[in-house]
Every structure is written in structure tokens, then in C-alpha cells.
């Protein structure tokens, strides 16, 4: 730390070059921040803190197959299950097929098994009492400017009403907020009453899409899942129960090899970055050969010179990297907003920052290694003579 000003001065010896290198580093970490944010979204389902005590029971054969509603009572009798809620996919669109709304028809106790969905008691009561009532997520409310009291017509792409009409009328009675650890995407749900849905729709009577089983203890998950699946074994509606994390992770994996592709891109970026910065550092040391020799002459140890050159390259990377990640943190939400929900980039999280800073230091050390070794081994006499 004593020589910080020296390192700092060396960094800005050639302003143009340092600036140019900085921009390369900034862009690289900007890219890293954005891509890592995307990557985290893909496995965020499996990382959320809430939901460790919930199982999802769905049809074993396919996501499009529904289960009989009668199963609820039987699942509830399995030891270790505290509460069973259920939901059905509604497939709602608002006005235009592009405005897809994540809408589920849910059982009355759905909000109880999701404590991270926070609704004021009055709004909760209004929801319970209104047949056509819906509660919506904060992001959805913001997106379309919906308020409590609004009447919203929603078209279902799957379920027409009994009279053949595909447009359903709903009353917004509540806008929830999200507690800690809520999974990604939960801020834009549209929850309607399953009972209303079940009575009014043309096709699916007494059928539900999936069950959410709240457990008494998360450690019991495996045993309870097996017990639930045993209920319907060898019937025509066999089930598969898995933790909520596993359920959403399997969904994310289906989007394909995105994780792999993202990693490949990051690999290419960092390889390039390493090369650019390494080259700059090598140049900087080559140029300063005589300066370093003077330092050594006036008593700096070889190891001290090594440390200073290393510090310089780490500083350069951390400096640029923090700016880059900072820009990414600001830009990611802006992009999500600008694209109107088409691209949903989450803000750069603490995990990405930690990983990013780790990478900065690591790359700084790798890049500085060769030049600093060169500086350490410098022979004073040769260097001063310009040989």
C-alpha cells in the first residue's frame, strides 16, 4: 500500500494506451455481467431460497396432461404433507397474442403455500370473496398500468367458456408484493380462481394442471414424493413429484444448450481479453526497462518490483472490470425495460459481482505474471545501458 501512488503513476504513464486497454476491459466485463445475468436466470429457479419445502406434483407423462381434482384429498393424507394447493394453466393473452400473461387458475389456499407472495389482509379477503377476482404481480401491474378495481378482459388461448366465448372478464382485487427469495418471474403472475375457471370453461371439468405440496419438513422431500407418486401408480394419471427447484430447473434445461453456448462465448471473450491486456502489460514493462532498473538501483528489492508490476496489472483489471460490471448493472434492467418484456435480463446480482471480481484479480495476476517476472529478473547494469 505504501507504494500505491507509484503504481498509480505508472498506470497512467501512457494515458492513451491505458485508456484504450481500459475500454477493452470495460467492454469485456460489461459483456460478462450481461451474460452471467442471463446464465443466472436460467438456473435461478434452482437457487431461490423460498420453496425448499414445496413439491410440485404433475403428470408423469407430459406437462399438457391434467390430473383429477380428487387427488388433492388423497395427497393431503400422506404423512409429512402440511398443505396441498393446485393450479391450472390458463394461457391468457391480453388484447394481442404478443401480450402473453402468465395466468394460472389457483385453488383457494394457493396463496397460503406461497408465503413469499405478500398480499394485504383486505385484498386477500376481497380475493376470497370475489368470484371473478384476480391478484396480479407488481411487474404485470406496471407493464399495463393495471390498478385494483380495473376490469380486465383476458383471452385464453386454450379454454373457451361454456358459451364458446374465449374472452374472460376478471376484476383486479389485489396487487401483491414479493417477499425475500422469491423465484425469478414470480413478479408477473395473474392468479384467478380455479373454481370460477372450472365452472365456466368448456372442456376440463374437475381437472387440475399440477399440485403444490407444502411439506412439514424439507428433509422429508424424497420420502413424501415417493409416497405421493405411489398413490396413482399404475393408474392412467401417474404422477411425478419433485422439488420446486428441480421442476423449474428441468424447464430451463429444455430451452436447450443455452448455458453451454453462453459459457463458450464467455470463454472466447476472456481469451481475447487476456491477450489484449497481456500485450499491453508486456509493452508497458518493456518501455520502462530503464525506470525499473533505477528503482532497483535505489534499493527496491527484486520481489518488490515484481509486486509492483503485478499490482499494476491487477489494479488495471479491477478498475476497468468494476466500471464494466457497473455499466452492466445499470444497462441490464434498462434493456429489459426497453424491449417491453421480450428480453428479460435480471439485474446483475451479488453472485455475478463476486465471480466478476474474482476473475478480475485472477486475470490480473495471470496477465501480469510474465512481465513482472521479466521485471524481477532484470539485470541493473544491462537495463541501464539499454541492452
Amino acid at each position, binding site marked *: 500500500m505504501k507504494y500505491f501512488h507509484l503504481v498509480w503513476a505508472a498506470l497512467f504513464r501512457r494515458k492513451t494506451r491505458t485508456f484504450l486497454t481500459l475500454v477493452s476491459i470495460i467492454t469485456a466485463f460489461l459483456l460478462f455481467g450481461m451474460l452471467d445475468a442471463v446464465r443466472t436466470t436460467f438456473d435461478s429457479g434452482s437457487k431461490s431460497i423460498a420453496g425448499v419445502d414445496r413439491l410440485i406434483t404433475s403428470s408423469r407423462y407430459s406437462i399438457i396432461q391434467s390430473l383429477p381434482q380428487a387427488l388433492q384429498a388423497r395427497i393431503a393424507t400422506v404423512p409429512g404433507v402440511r398443505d396441498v394447493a393446485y393450479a391450472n394453466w390458463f394461457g391468457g393473452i391480453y388484447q394481442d397474442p404478443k401480450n402473453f400473461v402468465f395466468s394460472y387458475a389457483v385453488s383457494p389456499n394457493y396463496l397460503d403455500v406461497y408465503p413469499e407472495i405478500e398480499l394485504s389482509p383486505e385484498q386477500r379477503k376481497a380475493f376470497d370473496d370475489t368470484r371473478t377476482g384476480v391478484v396480479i404481480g407488481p411487474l404485470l401491474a406496471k407493464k399495463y398500468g393495471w390498478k385494483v378495481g380495473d376490469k380486465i378482459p383476458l383471452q385464453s388461448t386454450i379454454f373457451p367458456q361454456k358459451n364458446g366465448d374465449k374472452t374472460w372478464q376478471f376484476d383486479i382485487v389485489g396487487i401483491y408484493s414479493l417477499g425475500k427469495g422469491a423465484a425469478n418471474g414470480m413478479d408477473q403472475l395473474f392468479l384467478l380462481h380455479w373454481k370460477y375457471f372450472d365452472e365456466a370453461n368448456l372442456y376440463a371439468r374437475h381437472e387440475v394442471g399440477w399440485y403444490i405440496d407444502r411439506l412439514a419438513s424439507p428433509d422429508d422431500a424424497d420420502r413424501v414424493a415417493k409416497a405421493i407418486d405411489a398413490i396413482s401408480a399404475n393408474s392412467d394419471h401417474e404422477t411425478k413429484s419433485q422439488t420446486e427447484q428441480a421442476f423449474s430447473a428441468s424447464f430451463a434445461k429444455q430451452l*436447450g444448450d443455452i448455458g453451454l453456448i453462453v459459457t463458450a462465448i464467455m470463454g472466447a471473450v476472456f481469451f481475447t481479453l487476456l491477450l489484449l491486456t497481456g500485450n499491453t502489460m508486456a509493452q508497458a514493462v518493456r518501455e520502462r526497462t530503464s525506470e525499473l532498473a533505477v528503482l532497483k538501483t535505489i534499493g527496491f528489492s527484486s520481489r518488490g518490483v515484481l509486486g509492483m508490476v503485478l499490482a499494476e496489472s491487477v489494479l488495471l483489471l479491477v478498475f476497468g472490470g468494476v466500471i464494466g460490471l457497473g455499466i452492466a448493472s445499470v444497462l441490464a434492467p434498462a434493456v429489459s425495460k426497453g424491449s417491453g418484456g421480450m428480453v428479460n435480463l435480471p439485474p446483475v446480482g451479488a453472485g455475478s459481482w463476486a465471480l466478476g471480481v474474482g476473475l478480475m484479480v485472477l486475470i490480473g495476476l495471470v496477465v501480469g505474471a510474465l512481465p513482472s517476472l521479466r521485471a524481477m529478473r532484470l539485470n541493473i547494469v544491462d537495463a541501464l545501458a539499454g541492452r
Partner: protein
Amino acid sequence: MKKFLSFLGNLGLLVLLAVVLGVWTRLSMAAVGVLAVLLILWLVFFRRGRQTLSVTRVGISTLGQRLGASSVIVIGIAGVVGVLVAMLAMGDGFAATLAQTGSDDTAIVLRGGSAAELNSVLERDNIDVIEQAPGVAKTPDGKPVASAEISVVANLPKKSDPTVDANVQIRGVDDAAWTLRPNVKILAGRRFKPGLRELVVGQGALRQFAGLEVGKQIRLAGQNWTVVGEFASGDSHDSELWGDRQTVASTYRRGSSAQSVTVRLTSPEAFDTFKSALVGDPRLKVDVSTTRDYYAKQSEGLTKVIRVVGITVGVIMAIGAIFGALNTMFAAVAARAREIATLRAIGFRGVPVVVSVLLETMLLALLGGVLGGFVTWLIFNGYTASTLGSNFSQVVFQFKVSPQLLWTGIKWALAIGLVGGLFPAVRAARLPVSTALREL
């Protein structure tokens, strides 16, 4: 004042650069060829050109001494071009797979507003009306060439990781499906027999999912099905499993309903007749499109997202690479400052110096572009990937590194080279000779 003037000059240079880049992105291959020929003519037949050539020759012959720095440009640009081309190849491959599916002389009918087969339901009486509509081709014995189809999604383990279940599309088809899609060819085994729980699998599905080999059994909705054949179609049907419609419908308790009806039209022109007959029929509320339009539309959303992401990432990387190139070329110019000053002292003008530094950078950039494109082609051309399509099932597609994309990549590389070389070149030409001669 002097500073202000040079600032103005730089500003002008920037504007000029923006204009040149704008024009450059729109240039066709032929136009670029003409430019290249003009450049060569100038280099060979004009005095300034010949001077440029000799300065460039000196620069290139000393490249070996600056191997590390020069390879930074090459590899940096190769990285940009590689990533860009790979992303675009992914989008193109996905779009191509769906675009190849379908034709102009077959039409698909879905329930109104369904967008995808998964959401659609057509009742038996609707199906009859659709099959009897005008414009539908008939077999010699007078039956309409139409296939009512059911498309359901099943969970099967993936081959790459058997613990991961992914969605596969199962299509229940009528007899006419084989006539409707003549490109579907049986590669091994045989077709399924109507009435039996038999399936034929597409080659793409076979590659992605475990346990679909001919002769094996899989469980669908609690019943055992036998795989009796493998087929290839070269389009999105490759990701599907086909079985008899009635049998699939009974397995999934769909009664006599279907989700879509595909018909062969008497000719592509008959589509309008067919469509207006169905749309005008008060008994029906359906969407009608040619199969080509239907499948092309399904790829629209994802292809757009991939393109936007690819180009955004490409632009950000390109900025990084430009600064890398700038850095390297500034250093190269600084290293050769004395030599350049000497040349100018003995009468070489600014233009040959500027152009020669530019040429050198663009040459390195071209090398990078070719390298990046080649490596991407080597790795990704024909690379098979899969993703979730609009029917909630896996669509298998191949990356397509076309010459068109490689050309785009090379254009990007040259543009990066131009930007990265221009400022150092101008600096080389502007450096006062006396200062430069004294420089280390």
C-alpha cells in the same frame, strides 16, 4: 488554437468514418470486389500508389518482429467474428429448419386464435366440413387428401443426460399424412400400423432422446408403445414421433377430436378458395394458413431474439476488439516512428503513410476474420442443438454456417480493422518529422 484545429480535424475524421462504415455495411460482394480492384490499380499504376506499396512492404516485412502484438489483432478479431457467426448460424439454422417445413400447396387449419397446434381443438363435425371444402385435392378414388392430426407432448429422458426429461412431440396422424408430406422417408423399420400402439420416430428425436431405437418400447400415458420405424424428413418433423391418430387420441382420451387438419390443395392458387370457404362457413371458427406460412411464423420470435442477442454481443465485442487493435497499431506506429519520419523526410507524403498503415491493419483484420469464420465453420457447421418450440416440445435443428454469414463476418472484421487502423495511421502522418526523428 492549434489544439482546437486538431480537435476539429479528429471530429471530421469521426464523422467521415461513420459515413464510410454506414456505406460499408450496405455494400454487396460485387461492390467490394470493384473497390478492391480499384485499390490494386491505384497501387500499381499511380506514383502515390507505388509509394504506398513500398511503405506497406516495409511494414509487412517487419511484422515478424511484432509477432505478439500483431497476433493480438488477428486473434481478437477472430474471436469477434467467430462468436458473431456462431450466433447468427444458430438463428439461421433454427429458422431454416422451420422454413423448410411445409409447402405452398398444403394448408393447415387450426381453431381460431390458437397460434400453435397445442392450443387448438377441432371437433369431429368440424373436421368433416374442412375435409370436404372446395380446393382440397382428391385421391383417384375420390377421398380428400387430408389428415386430421393430434399433437401431444410427452416427457422422455434426454440422451445426453438421462436424468433430464425433456418434452417430445407426438403426432397422431391419418393415413393421408404420408401422401401430404412426400419428403418423409422411412430409413429403417416400417410405418406404424393403424389401430396398434406403434410409433415411428424422426431421426432428430432419435438423436436427442434415449430409448427410441427401433424395436424398443416406451410408455405414454400409462400404456406401452413400440417403436417400429425411423424416418427422416429434413425439417421440423424430424423432432417428432408419429403414431396412428385414433390410437393416440384414445390413449390421451381425446375422443374423436383433433387439433389440426392438414390438407393438400389442388394447386397453390386454390388456397384462396379454400380459405374463404372455411372462413365464410358459419359452422366454423378457424384459422387457415399454408403450412409454409404456419411453420415460418413459428420460428419468428426465437430467431429474432437470437439475432438481437447475437448482434448485441457482437457489437460489444467489436468495440473491445477495436480498442485492442487501436492499442496495437498505436504501439506499432510508435515503434516505427523514426522509420516513418525518415520516409517523410526523404519526400514521402502523408497519403502513402496513412494508407499503408491502414492496409497493414486491414490485412491483419482480414486474416482474423478468415480465421474466426473458418474455426466457427469447422466447429459449428451442422452442429445439432435443440430448444423448446412453440408447441412446448423440443425442436431439433442444425447450425448453418452459410457463405453469406462468413461474408458478413469478414465485412465486420474489415470494418474493425478500418476503425482500429485509421487513427494510428493519421497520427503517423501528422507527427512532426523533427520530433519523430528524435524519438526513441
